[in-house]
């Protein structure tokens, strides 16, 4: 038996082929990843036109189902609370004393702070503004 530590030509060529094929495979995998990791849909709406501010009088709390958010008109003006649960994204239900998530039991108080887990963060506050056309707008980002 040849105790020469050098590699035979056959084994070297075999190794080289395997290395090249592996490199090709990795390249293909990278390309596959780029192929799959693409958005074809337009980005979701972040600016919601809510119409005239007069539709939401002082003291009102209006659930906007398609955002989803709660629009509050208080003495300090308009504010909005996102109704997306901060745990895993289900839409929370508006209740008398706050909000309840139907998925894993998280509860939030009327201001959006967590009153019972498993959610860890309070409901997001969303920005509102009245634009130059006089309409109230809500922004989700």
């Amino acid at each position, binding site marked *: 038996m040849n105790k020469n530590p050098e590699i035979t030509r056959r084994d070297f060529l075999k190794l080289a082929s395997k290395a090249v094929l592996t490199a090709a495979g990795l390249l293909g995998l990278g390309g596959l990843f780029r192929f799959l990791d693409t958005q074809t849909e337009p980005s979701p709406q972040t600016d919601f036109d809510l119409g*005239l501010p007069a539709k939401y009088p002082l003291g*009102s709390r209006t659930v906007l189902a398609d955002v989803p958010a709660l629009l509050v008109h208080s003495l300090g003006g308009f504010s909005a609370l996102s109704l997306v649960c901060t745990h895993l994204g289900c839409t929370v239900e508006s209740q008398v004393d706050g909000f309840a998530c139907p998925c894993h039991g998280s509860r939030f108080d009327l201001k959006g702070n967590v009153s019972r887990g498993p959610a860890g963060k309070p409901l997001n506050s969303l920005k509102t503004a009245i634009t130059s056309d006089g309409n109230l707008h809500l922004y989700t980002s």
Partner: protein
Amino acid sequence: MRRYFLLAASLALLLALLFVAWYEKLHPKPVPLTPTLTGQVEYCLTCHSDLAQISNSHPVQTFGCVLCHSGEPLALDANLAHSTMRGGSNPSDFSVVQASCGSDKCHSGTPESYSNHIQRATTSIQATYAGAIANIMFTFGVQPDLTARLGIFSVQVPGSTSGITALAAFDPAQETNPYVKAFGQNCLTCHLSAQPMPGSVYFRFTGCAACHTPTQSADRTSTQQLQSSQIHKLTTSISYTQCDTCHNRGNYDLRSITFTPRQDLPIDRLHDYYQPIAQFTSCEWMLDCVDCHTRTEAMGDGNLYSSKLDIQYIQCKTCHGTLTELPQTRPLTDPNDLAFRLALINPVVDLKLGDTILVTGKNEPLWNTCVLPDGIYQLVGKATGEVFPFKPVMGSACTQNGTDQTSAYCHTCHSVTR
């Protein structure tokens, strides 16, 4: 023995397949309907083919069912099919009426096209109950005057000509005054979004159906019987009995904030119409409420008001005139006159171009009236079809003073003894 297992199992499979085929035959054959207004096929008629068409103005071949009721058009399982119906069995409930009856081609159009029913009905006094609420709040010192600030739901009418452009929602839980709280508990059963009190005499639907889907007294033995009989009707031919599910039912006591129902057991129309304490003339019980009270009075004019007194304006003189004036009339020369449309929906009269009808002080057409050639006037009952000829006050033996035209004044001579 074991070699027959395979044969037995094969036979069992064949039997199972035959059973499945037989079971499939038990299912009702789907009945499709593609209404002309939607172009989408729906299968409600598979189970509901025996339901009467709701009205001649809403033919099922044109509208279908889903346009008004929503629901799952393709489902033949009752629970799934009905799961997304608007307003349960009543799509005219005000919480869903805009989606069911709205759109500018239907009942939320413009005043000029006479199609702004939803905007008027949802801001009317019967819907907002603003008058009753304002009265109680003022009586017990919670608000300084009788101007309405609250309604059953919050509503805004930016261009309201009454000066009231918005009402906030009345929430009895937020009120501290014990009388107002008691009012919230005991006295909120007669607005258009309220569930009526228990009892067959009070039974009615909510929303538009409160008036336009009449419930016959024979149906009203129990709510369950009512619901199972599937009353499916929209009409403008509304009998006084429908109005009486809320009106003329009894008395409220302001000191105890309770309601005492009327105790009499009426045997005929005369005794049934009003509760025993009322005063009324013969036309006020022989006609139906809708024969005099106009569209604007019952459904509002789109503005917010603090009291029914701000919207009710019909008087005896509207039809009968005064000693010095004949009642106002209008000859029908325009084929697009509202009078013709109203007469078409409820054909108790055969109005023709050239006929002359009476009109109110606000120029609303009293389309069920007409002026006959010999100076006689005629009214045909919208709900009964009865013909009532009558003469104007001018030229009669009436001894009115002319300045007081309130009904109480006319009652002094003309009120009926029960």
